[in-house]
């Protein structure tokens, strides 16, 4: 991100940008209307046999997160219309690449709103993963840079990988309650081991998404994303998705006090790790990334505290944080744009050149640090109130945490704007300043007229807590505990801000310990190992055609053999009677056996292929005799196509290739290995087929029903009717596979020749 030199950007932002802004504005208006109208639901069966429902409910909780996704999305999109052309220009990329950015951004917004409203665990998982997938492409938007690609992969592996835990959790809960519907589960919820396991699994996925310790390490690296992506995903959306899910399942989490205590521990660990590391970061966006880890730690602690106080605090906290943090991210982007610098040590003294940005970001930082006359003051008020209600030790932790917040934000703002005056390289377009000012104005409005925000938080908290919650933040000019705690937090923060040397030393120490022992190292190790194993297996498999075939046939044979060992063989290998009428069948089979032996023994090139064709035709004859004319027809035509293709290709192969090839007798290790693989695969196939033919089919015979129903389907030929009607969906999938395979083969062949 350093030293970018912006040239003069093209004046017109892409149409896609305006479309995205329109989409965000429409979403915002609809969110507002939906919230005012009260509960509004969609519920349609999606996969009824599996119990999935496409169930969305626009309750207060959904409204809060939808407001964040749409509102902050709108402002960030406005900002991005100015930012993106410059960014693409600086990276020497065509402006057309912007289309990709906008489509992923809008998809992200939509899936975020869908996640907020979803009431079905499977649907929730789908939206959860959709946010992960779109974030992968957004973080890796600068795909020519390897750090961006690595960061995108890291974010995807951590968040989508842990999302598997969420799916598992959903399945466990379904096993316990017989439904994926979240409201139904919450209504029936009781404290059972399965409930605890299920919701802990979901909580793990949520914590990883919110970049909580020990999954936090993906977030700082994700700062390789363009600034609007960071401002949106890493303040109000992607990371908020985690606490969103925690809030949704909170009634289940709060059944078990141990789970809540674990949340408090995880939250405080994140506050500490994120806050302390934020103190020593040099890159602007890194400071903010660690700050986000820390701030969502607050929300997790509030969930852990639980009760009406915790629920109310968590709801308001998410709103206040998202507004301020996105403003700060946008500030970082604007400052870097104006100066070409992204490091605190290289910045400073910008207050005179960028007064509006300085004031606006100052207000945003003040809100996060809980100064009065900002929305953030109330978030800390509720936080402190909930903490002391829980336990004194939690209260002490809360004060220290708030002090830490003040310290790193103070360092951030002072580092950018204070100090000796410094000139700018470029002006900053107003589209990049106005969103910051709007966000800052929102925090001030919230600090004076807190009513609407409190109402929104109360509605959401009711969803978290499970019953109506009163949220009544206000200024109290007295010596109540919350006020004293706020003063204490400021004192701690200012002390940390002043004690530069101690602060840096501690932060570096923690950073080094984290590098040595942290989960990031483990991630690298795991990824490397998996990569190496995959590479080794791949190489062994694709060495030549024989190893590729053996890779399929040998494991199949071994698995089948294993199956034979563990299943009872009584009556499985029936020889059956043999009559005069079977003579044609036996002749054909003998022909097949002869052809197969020829194919393996013959050293020529064309003869084995022709022998295989003979084998195929013989089997087609067997089908015809056994009364399966449809199968025989298809076998016959396919066999003919294969023969012709083989002959056509082989007829043109250069004659020398035969001499180069080791003879089919294959003396030596390779020959023996091939023989062993072939015998193993052949024997297991033989045993499987024999055993299958010996057993009468289990369960009610489908065939009889199919034959009975065929006239109803206006048909005479059962096989055709099964293919086109009874099992039409199967056929559809199969021919789709055929189409895909053809596309694959065509593209492989086309690489060499273009007819």
């Amino acid at each position, binding site marked *: 991100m350093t030293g970018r030199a912006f040239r003069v950007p093209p004046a017109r932002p892409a149409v896609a940008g305006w479309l995205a802004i329109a989409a965000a504005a429409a979403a915002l208006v609809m969110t507002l209307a939906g919230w005012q109208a009260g509960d509004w639901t969609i519920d349609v069966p999606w996969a009824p046999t599996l119990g999935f429902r496409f169930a969305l409910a626009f309750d207060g909780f959904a409204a809060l997160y939808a407001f964040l996704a749409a509102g902050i999305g709108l402002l960030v999109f406005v900002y991005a219309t100015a930012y993106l052309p410059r960014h693409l220009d600086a990276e020497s990329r065509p402006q057309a690449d912007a289309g990709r950015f906008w489509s992923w951004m809008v998809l992200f917004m939509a899936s975020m709103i869908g996640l907020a409203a979803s009431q079905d665990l499977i649907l929730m998982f789908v939206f959860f993963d959709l946010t992960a997938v779109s974030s992968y492409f957004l973080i890796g938007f600068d795909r020519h840079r390897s750090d961006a690609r690595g960061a995108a992969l890291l974010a995807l592996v951590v968040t989508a990988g842990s999302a598997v835990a969420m799916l598992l959790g959903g399945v466990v809960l379904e096993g316990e309650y017989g439904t994926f519907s979240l409201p139904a589960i919450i209504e029936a919820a009781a404290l059972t081991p399965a409930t605890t396991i299920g919701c802990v699994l979901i909580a793990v996925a949520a914590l990883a998404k919110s970049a909580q310790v020990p999954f936090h390490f993906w977030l700082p690296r994700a700062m390789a994303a363009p600034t609007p992506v960071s401002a949106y995903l890493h303040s109000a959306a992607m990371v908020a998705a985690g606490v969103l899910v925690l809030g949704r399942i909170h009634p289940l989490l709060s059944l078990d006090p141990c789970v809540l205590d674990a949340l408090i521990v995880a939250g405080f660990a994140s506050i500490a790790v994120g806050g302390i590391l934020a103190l020593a970061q040099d890159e602007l966006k890194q400071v903010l990334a660690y700050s986000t880890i820390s701030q969502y730690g607050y929300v997790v602690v509030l969930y852990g505290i639980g009760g009406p106080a915790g629920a109310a605090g968590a709801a308001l906290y998410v709103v206040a944080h998202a507004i301020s943090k996105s403003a700060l991210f946008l500030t970082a982007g604007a400052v870097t744009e104006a100066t070409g610098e992204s490091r605190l040590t290289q910045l400073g003294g910008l207050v005179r050149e960028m007064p509006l940005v300085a004031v606006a970001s100052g207000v945003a930082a003040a809100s996060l640090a809980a100064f009065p006359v900002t929305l953030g003051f109330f978030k800390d008020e509720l936080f402190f109130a909930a903490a002391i209600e829980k336990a004194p030790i939690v209260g002490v932790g809360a004060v220290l945490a708030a002090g830490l917040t003040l310290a790193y934000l103070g360092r951030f703002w002072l580092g950018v704007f204070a100090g000796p005056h410094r000139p700018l390289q470029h002006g900053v377009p107003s589209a990049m300043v106005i969103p910051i000012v709007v966000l800052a104005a929102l925090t001030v409005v919230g600090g004076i007229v807190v009513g609407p925000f409190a109402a929104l938080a109360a509605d959401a908290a009711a969803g978290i807590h499970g019953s109506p919650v009163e949220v009544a933040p206000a200024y109290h000019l007295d010596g109540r505990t919350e006020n004293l705690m706020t003063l204490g937090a400021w004192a701690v923060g200012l002390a940390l801000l002043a004690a530069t040397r101690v602060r840096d030393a501690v932060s570096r120490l923690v950073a080094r310990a984290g590098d040595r022992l942290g989960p990031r190292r483990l991630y690298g190790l795991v990824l490397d190992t998996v990569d190496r194993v995959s590479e080794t297996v791949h190489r062994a498999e694709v060495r030549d055609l024989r190893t590729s075939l053996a890779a399929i046939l040998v494991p199949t044979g071994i698995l089948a053999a294993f199956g034979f060992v563990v299943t009872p063989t009584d009556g499985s290998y029936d020889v059956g009677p043999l009559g005069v009428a079977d003579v044609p069948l036996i002749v054909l089979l003998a022909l097949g056996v002869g052809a197969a032996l020829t194919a393996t023994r013959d050293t020529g090139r064309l003869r084995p292929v022709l022998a295989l064709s003979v084998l195929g035709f013989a089997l087609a004859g067997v089908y015809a005799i056994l009364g399966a004319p449809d199968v025989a027809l298809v076998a016959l035509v396919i066999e003919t196509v294969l023969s012709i293709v083989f002959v056509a290709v082989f007829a043109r192969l250069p004659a020398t290739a035969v001499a180069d090839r080791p003879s089919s007798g294959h003396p030596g290790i390779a020959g023996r290995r091939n023989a062993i693989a072939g015998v193993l695969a052949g024997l297991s196939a033989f045993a499987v087929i024999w055993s299958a033919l010996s057993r009468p089919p289990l369960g009610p015979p489908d065939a009889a029903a199919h034959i009975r129903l065929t006239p109803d389907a206006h*048909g005479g030929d059962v096989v*055709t*009717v099964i293919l*086109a009607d009874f099992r039409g969906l199967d056929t559809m999938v199969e021919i789709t596979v055929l189409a895909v395979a*053809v596309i694959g083969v065509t593209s492989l062949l086309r690489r060499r020749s273009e007819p």
Partner: protein
Amino acid sequence: MTPIVELIAPRLLPIASVVAIALIVKGYANVGEGFGAGVIVALAIGLRYVVLGPERADRTIPIVRAAPLVAVTGLLIALGSGFFGLLFGSPPFTHYPPPGEPVVRIGALELTTAVAFDVGIFLLVVGAVVMLIRQLSWLVAEDDS
């Protein structure tokens, strides 16, 4: 190539087409369906490529250039006839007319949406296999030269 094959190969397509049409028309009452019919037509075209080589074959039946289009059309017809029932709230692969209703007949052929599905499969198979054969044929010819 023997003279007999050279004589037969270019003249096989009309015959194969008639057989294929018969298989589709009679498919619902008798042996055969779209898949087999598709392979038979593709076979006739494939034989022509083997005997004449790609350049001459391309010249004699220029329509093969449209093979990808034919395949995609077939896939779309199959998809459409399989899923149009969703618009009326019935599950996929509900064919019309439903059991017991009268059907329009053309000889042995009863016109139901299942037949459209079969035609879709036929087109897809013809298109796909011809595409493969043609690509392969060009590849071999290129290696030769």
